[in-house]
């Protein structure tokens, strides 16, 4: 696993906090202003940045991120431009924060997985999340990423049977992304009661940090998870805040969630 990710999770742990993996859509509302959102989230306390790269047909995403994808595509966001124009600038402004790309497999395939991995490493990306690439289909892409030292972060779902979840966790790179609810990205009023058990199971098997994501939108939804996970991913709530009220709102929300992540 990448030393940068390792350090970021260790720093949060040393402070007695769960880590906050904060997601925003690159290119929403446009490329330069999305950089401001990422930087603001780090000021608010984000430990890892998840940089969304828009795809025209985002089947794993709920309405908030779907709408953000459409805005980003209209603004001309492409994987190439995100790597050339957004990532280096975020890196410059937040040199300590590990950067992870989240997009769909077709976007990476269109660039070529080897070319992507090389370019991503050169620009300072340490990991990549592809929500429509289950383990059965990931061998080739993962080998290409491994070669460049870019972690292919696997996902684990509420519907994943225990033995499969353990295998995914054992074999993970970067961190394990535990999807909290059977559904698409988006805020939820409450999370399933068995989530903590599933996180415990994955945590026992994993040699890398374990984070919970989907449906977490504030300190209250994050708080119960810190006992069972190394951190949380927050996406839709941040995208919504940044879209409605700009970078300062995303910063404020990050700070609020970080308070909920204190152990």
């Amino acid at each position, binding site marked *: 696993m990448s030393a940068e990710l390792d350090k970021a999770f260790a720093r949060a742990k040393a402070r007695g906090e769960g880590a906050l993996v904060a997601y925003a859509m690159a290119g929403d509302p446009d490329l330069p202003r999305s950089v401001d959102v990422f930087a603001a989230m780090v000021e608010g306390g984000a430990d890892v940045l998840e940089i969304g790269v828009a795809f*025209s047909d985002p089947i794993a995403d709920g309405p908030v991120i779907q709408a953000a994808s459409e805005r980003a595509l209209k603004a001309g966001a492409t994987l190439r431009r995100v790597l050339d124009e957004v990532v280096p600038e975020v890196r410059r402004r937040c040199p300590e924060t590990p950067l992870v790309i989240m997009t769909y497999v077709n*976007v990476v395939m269109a660039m070529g997985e080897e070319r992507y991995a090389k370019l991503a490493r050169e620009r300072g990306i340490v990991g990549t999340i592809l929500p*429509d690439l*289950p383990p059965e289909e990931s061998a080739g892409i993962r080998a290409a990423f491994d070669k460049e030292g870019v972690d292919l972060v696997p*996902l684990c*779902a509420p*519907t*994943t049977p225990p033995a499969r979840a353990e295998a995914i966790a054992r074999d993970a790179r970067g961190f394990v992304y535990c*999807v909290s609810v059977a559904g698409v990205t988006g805020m939820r009023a409450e999370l399933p009661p068995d989530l903590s058990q599933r996180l415990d199971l994955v945590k026992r098997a994993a040699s890398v940090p374990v984070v919970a994501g989907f449906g977490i939108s504030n300190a209250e939804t994050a708080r119960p998870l810190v006992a069972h996970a190394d951190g949380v991913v927050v996406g839709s709530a941040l995208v919504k805040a940044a879209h409605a009220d700009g970078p300062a709102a995303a910063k404020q929300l990050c700070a609020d969630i970080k308070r909920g992540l204190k152990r």
Partner: protein
Amino acid sequence: MTTDTAVGRFGRYGGRYVPETLVPALLELEEAYAKAQKDASFGEEVTRVLREYVGRPTTLTPAHRLTEAWGGAQVWLKREDLAHTGAHKINNTVGQVLLARRMGKKRIIAETGAGQHGVATATACALFGLPCEVFMGALDVERQALNVFRMRALGAVVRPVESGSRTLKDAMNEAMRVWVSQVQDTYYVIGSAAGPHPYPTIVRDFQSVIGREIRAQTLATIGRLPDAIIACVGGGSNAIGALHPFIPDTAVRLVGVEAAGHGLESGQHGASLTLGTEGVLHGSRSLVLQDEHGQIQEAHSISAGLDYPGVGPELAHLAKTGRMEVRTATDDDALAAFYEVARTEGILPALETSHAFAAARSLARDMGKGKHLVINCSGRGDKDVATISARGVPPATGVKS
């Protein structure tokens, strides 16, 4: 020759590119389907419903006047338009809804473009008493009012999808999103031979009844297999159903016809086999219309059923390996063919099917006399009359005004 190269793969194409949440459901479906295939009673039940309710076998009609007009091969029409609900789509929905019932699923969801698959799913759900929701692009809801009414009349809920291009691909995205949220008790009936494994195989198997009947019927009427079979290709369920049983018969030419829309050079078409590049859409790797950045492009066709930027993975494999020849027909070609078939054979073909007819004329001429050409008449044109009549109807033939 078989097209299966690994589980769920057709050469380079196929696979299962979906969120992890869905993988266990797809594994469950794969296992349930394998068990059902081994259970003779399941196959018998599907066959019985197809016979007693759908009206199978559909006839193989000799098209005497088209044969004469085209002056080439003897033309035969495989009459899927005569199946209940007016298209081949019912072959698959009967099979899948029976499979869903066998798996103990409580509700059915589906996506639809032109509405034929939605109507066929709603029909099977009514027949077997399961609640049904159909996702349909908001633009298609406007274009296909008759089929929207039919689905509602059959007791289904039609959910217009406002995202993206508001057509079939967006309906499919939305159906997948809803399925992810309700995967425990919900069965997703996919209508094209596309989507994640095992759907391309399941849909192909249920639709292969078309090709098996063509085989038996040509053996009975002409004493041998046909020389060529032609079918239109959107996602490709009618094509793979008609063509698949003939893949090992290399003397039989297999021909697929895609929508060239306003013309291949216009950028507004649905020709993913002809101009698509390798990519992942809706859970499988196949040929898709996309830009250099991997963003899926909007397809265009006068026919809502061919207005899809992807194609089933097995057809992509057949096209790339050369086993299937691929031709195209424009919107205008399809409209001209619609009237030609209407006035020559007394059949109003669906606009999808009209593309197959448009390309069949030159194929029949190339083949020449003494050869036999089967056109898969995938559906009837009633659903398209508003679209077609809006362009004006040519004057009556052979009548003095």
